[in-house]
């Protein structure tokens, strides 16, 4: 299985990349880690006329915290997140996911921003981005815009990035106060696509009520989806077992899975609920709330 023929271009700077994209528009695809795009090209699911390799742009391989965000550049690889002390200490949801993306060798090449742009319905990072209220910085040769995760994921394998544009970074809000999270995923083996996944992030108020809940589910529909009804149920409430069960029910209602060799639609819908509940219990446990939850 070889990809269809294409012209290969390398960009050595952001300006070079944007100029190439301005010139070639929708004929060009951006190559970062390539861990999803290259298999897609091999299966001829993607046949770009031009492949624009951004790996030589060293300044896009970064991760920095400041101005209320953790910002991750387009060339930063998953493996860097896995060993980051900043992520381990403050960004629990991201820390969890960084250990579960694909397999350890794939993580040495794959990138977070690339995964977000690929927007596979079973991808890990879209779910995480939705639950943690991430934003993406998108640029073209004329300027820059910021798009919230909620508006970024348009449909399976399609995003808000238009022809001639490129996503340059993702920004995760720095958790304030008592915040934790958890990423839950069922997979048949390491590196398989998720059977179902859930991302949870919770911030507690001083009185122990939930100030802000972020919940998203993946692999159980055409794209990763925020479970807004579950968030609304939780916000302002003290966490209880019944509340967690009710939030899980909302995830099951919104799940729209397709049956495949990983399981029936019924099973996957059930698992969406189970994983949201597990994510909530794990997040609360990390916040020192055990008791009723």
């Amino acid at each position, binding site marked *: 299985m070889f990809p269809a023929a294409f012209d*290969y271009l390398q960009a050595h700077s952001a300006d070079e990349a944007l100029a190439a994209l301005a010139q070639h528009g929708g004929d060009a695809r951006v190559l970062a880690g390539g861990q999803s795009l290259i298999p897609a090209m091999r299966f001829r699911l993607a046949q770009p006329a031009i492949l624009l390799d951004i790996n030589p742009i060293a300044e896009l391989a970064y991760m920095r915290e400041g101005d209320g965000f953790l910002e991750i550049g387009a060339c930063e690889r998953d493996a860097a997140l896995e060993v980051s002390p900043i992520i381990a200490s403050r960004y629990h949801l991201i820390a969890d996911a960084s250990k579960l993306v694909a397999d350890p*060798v794939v993580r040495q090449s794959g990138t977070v921003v690339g995964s977000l742009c690929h927007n596979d319905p079973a991808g890990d990072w879209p779910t995480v981005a939705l639950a943690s209220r991430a934003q993406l910085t998108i640029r073209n040769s004329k300027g820059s815009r910021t798009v919230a995760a909620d508006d970024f994921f348009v449909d399976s394998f399609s995003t808000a990035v238009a022809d001639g544009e490129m996503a340059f970074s993702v920004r995760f809000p720095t958790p304030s106060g008592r915040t934790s999270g958890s990423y839950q995923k069922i997979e048949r083996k*390491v*590196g398989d696509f998720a059977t179902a996944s859930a991302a949870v992030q919770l911030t507690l108020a001083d009185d122990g009520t939930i100030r802000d809940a972020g919940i998203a589910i993946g692999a159980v529909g055409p794209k990763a989806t925020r479970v807004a009804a579950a968030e609304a149920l939780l916000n302002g409430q003290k966490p209880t077992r019944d509340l967690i069960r009710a939030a899980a029910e909302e995830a099951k209602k919104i799940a729209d899975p397709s049956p495949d060799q990983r399981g029936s639609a019924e099973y996957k819908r059930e698992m969406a609920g189970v994983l949201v509940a597990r994510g909530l219990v794990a997040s609360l446990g990390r916040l020192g709330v055990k008791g009723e939850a």
Partner: protein
Amino acid sequence: MKVNVTVNGRAYERDVEPRTLLAYFLREDLGLTGTHVGCDTSSCGCCVVVLDGDRAVKSCTMFAVAADGHEITTVEGLEQNGVLHPLQQAFWDSHGLQCGYCTPGMMMTLVAFLKQNPKPDKHEIREAISGNLCRCTGYQNIVKAAEQAAAELSKAAEPQTAGVK
């Protein structure tokens, strides 16, 4: 398209189609058939090589043109002057292979891993090779071999790893 790469310390220049995958470039253009192609879809880890000394990559999921200007180490680059690399010796000693098909990928994954984590425990070793499939050994002896190699490499430190920068 011209590609200049250094493989196992030797410089090569070749003209390739952009769609040539690194695994096929190594095997067919350079004749280095130690790098195996298993699943050909980024799932099995047989084709892993080391890029620029410390990054394990699945060579079926990288284009040869993207390796331009980079250094690659394949399984053929492990042995130095007739002396097996500590990982090779450990795989031999611990019977870490049976049919041998996954072995180059296992070893190259572990070469990079032991650079990143020179003193891993059993669990970390199992994690590290979780993207590499072996259908013969049940992994027990591979993990044993990795432990032996880790001990050997950290004892010997720098000199033994020459060529696998």
